[in-house]
């Protein structure tokens, strides 16, 4: 049986080369697009603003404040919030408002250093491992597996006790453990990306492998890296708070949010403000980072692009 199809159906409808080539919208780069989308997300922008305010306050409030964070007014010990001392006084008569921002410096420093090390070591390690593949990849990933196999908090505790308590050992311990997650993530991305044509082109032109990893592969995984880092920062802040809480973290006279919460927890029954303010500072910062991370993921994830 023969079916007849109208020949008209196969005629070219006609197209105008001018029209099809015309640029309808101004072209924007990936990052402009992501920024535009992030700006639309009110929650994420509010979180970003909050983080900027907290950061600025940590930097400048202790500088301009009349009280020193170590200064004691023992007659005012445990006093609740008042006009002179906005957040009240702790059990040794120190101004909690000033101490919050001093403590915040430590917490934010830990978060940023952790993120930075994670970024540099993790991205390069993952990039190299993914790009070279084979035996190199095998050995490098086994090393990661062993490090991941050790509970993270135990490494931190061990290093803090062997190097002495305090900020330095806390940071070193974070450096040892923080990068593994990102390394795995970047490796996975690079494994996909290295099959791309532009990598082949770069190889043909004789670009050195290290340069391919650094200039071609890593920038293309940047969105994944950024999102991962925003979620990692609260993790580092939490780790510091945790260690300070069991008195392995920052040592007096310096303080951090975790250390303040630890002191406040002992006074909670009678002077709840001593726990409330550090706890609120930690929770708000972590919340802001988490919400910003959510927003960034939505803004940067190409899968959601229409």
């Amino acid at each position, binding site marked *: 049986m023969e079916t007849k199809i109208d020949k008209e159906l196969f005629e070219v409808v006609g197209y105008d080369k001018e029209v099809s080539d015309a640029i309808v919208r101004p072209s924007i780069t990936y990052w402009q697009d992501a920024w535009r989308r992030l700006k639309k997300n009110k929650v994420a922008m509010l979180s970003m603003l909050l983080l900027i305010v907290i950061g600025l306050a940590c930097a400048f409030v202790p500088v301009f404040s009349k009280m020193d964070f170590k200064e004691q007014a023992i007659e005012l010990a445990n006093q609740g919030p008042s006009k002179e001392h906005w957040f009240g006084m702790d059990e040794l008569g120190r101004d909690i408002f000033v101490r919050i921002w001093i403590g915040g410096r430590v917490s934010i420093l830990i978060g940023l250093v952790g993120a930075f090390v994670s970024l540099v070591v993790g991205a390069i390690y993952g990039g190299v491992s993914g790009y070279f593949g084979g035996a190199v990849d095998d050995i490098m990933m086994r090393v990661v597996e062993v490090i991941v196999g050790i509970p993270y908090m135990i490494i931190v505790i061990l290093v803090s006790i062997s190097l002495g308590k305090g900020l330095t050992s806390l940071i070193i311990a974070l450096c040892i453990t923080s990068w593994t997650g990102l390394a795995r993530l970047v490796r996975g991305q690079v494994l996909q990306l290295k099959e791309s044509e532009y990598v082949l082109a770069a190889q043909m032109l004789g670009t050195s492998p290290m340069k391919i990893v650094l200039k071609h592969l890593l920038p293309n995984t940047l969105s994944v890296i950024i999102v991962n880092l925003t979620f990692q920062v609260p993790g580092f802040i939490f780790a510091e708070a945790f260690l300070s809480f069991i008195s392995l973290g920052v040592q007096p006279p310096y303080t951090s949010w975790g250390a303040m919460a630890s002191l406040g927890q002992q006074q909670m029954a009678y002077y709840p403000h001593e*726990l409330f303010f550090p706890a609120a500072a930690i929770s708000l910062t972590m919340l802001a980072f988490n919400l910003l991370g959510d927003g960034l993921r939505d803004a940067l994830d190409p899968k959601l692009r229409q």
Partner: protein
Amino acid sequence: MAQYILKRVGYLILTMWVIVTATFFLMNTLPGDPIQTGTKLLPPAVEANLKEKWGLNKPVVERYFIYLKNVAQGNLGESMKSPGLTANQIIKEKFPASARLGLQAICLGVVVGLIFGIIAAFRRNTWVDYSVIFIALVGVSVPSFVLAALLQKALGGKILPIIGWPSENIWTSGFKYTILPTLAASFGSIATYSRFMRTSVLDVLNNDYIQTAKAKGLSKWAIIRKHILRNSITPIITMIAPQIAGIVTGSFIIERIFCIPGLGMYYVESINGRDFTMIMATTIFFSFFFVISIVLMDILYGVVDPRVRITGEKR
């Protein structure tokens, strides 16, 4: 599959060796001296005797091999602060409290988290969904020690005991003592599970086979049980192992706040008391526990999801 398990066990042994070695050498660089802390200066003869007893007069490398041999035989040494008690005995005595807390917290976390996640996904963009998202956000943002303090303040005293732990019949008695610590310890995992389960269910819901199942006229319950749950729960299984570690380490804090005589609290005490053998023993014990749970989860994952099994063998 057998080959895969064998390979995993091989890595497990390698990981444990690295942990034992690292712990041992880190402990030996410690600035404190367990023999000198807490006591007045000992006469040289006594000090020499004590060093002899602990083997501290031998070179580090020799001690390392002795220790390695002992650990391989399951002997973790004798506590330096509680003479006469071996680390094995202390762990045996202290661990049940931590294990009960951890087990209850994981069960509560997994069950409630999964249920929350599923409900939120099915009631997407309603108040149910928003409240689950809110709980999940609070759960990841508020540290467990703050939450524990809030729970003590809100519920403790009249309704539930604020601190304490059943001292006898450690697995069955005194349930009311365990309620607050369990809640505090599991809140984080409830948050994590509900968040991931929600995304996972939403991913599955978008698949064509769900449409097919609906078109076939399957009941809603059958679709949920056979198609949605089975497919959305597999990625969650991989998350349980890290959560176990989180609950173990989180127990340091929870146990301290609620005065629970568990291993976590004892670990922190041994760190502050420079009890070398106990620090090493507990570290090795915790790590072993963690590594084993990761391997078990991986194997379980292979059982649940055939795709993993196949790629696992290929590699």
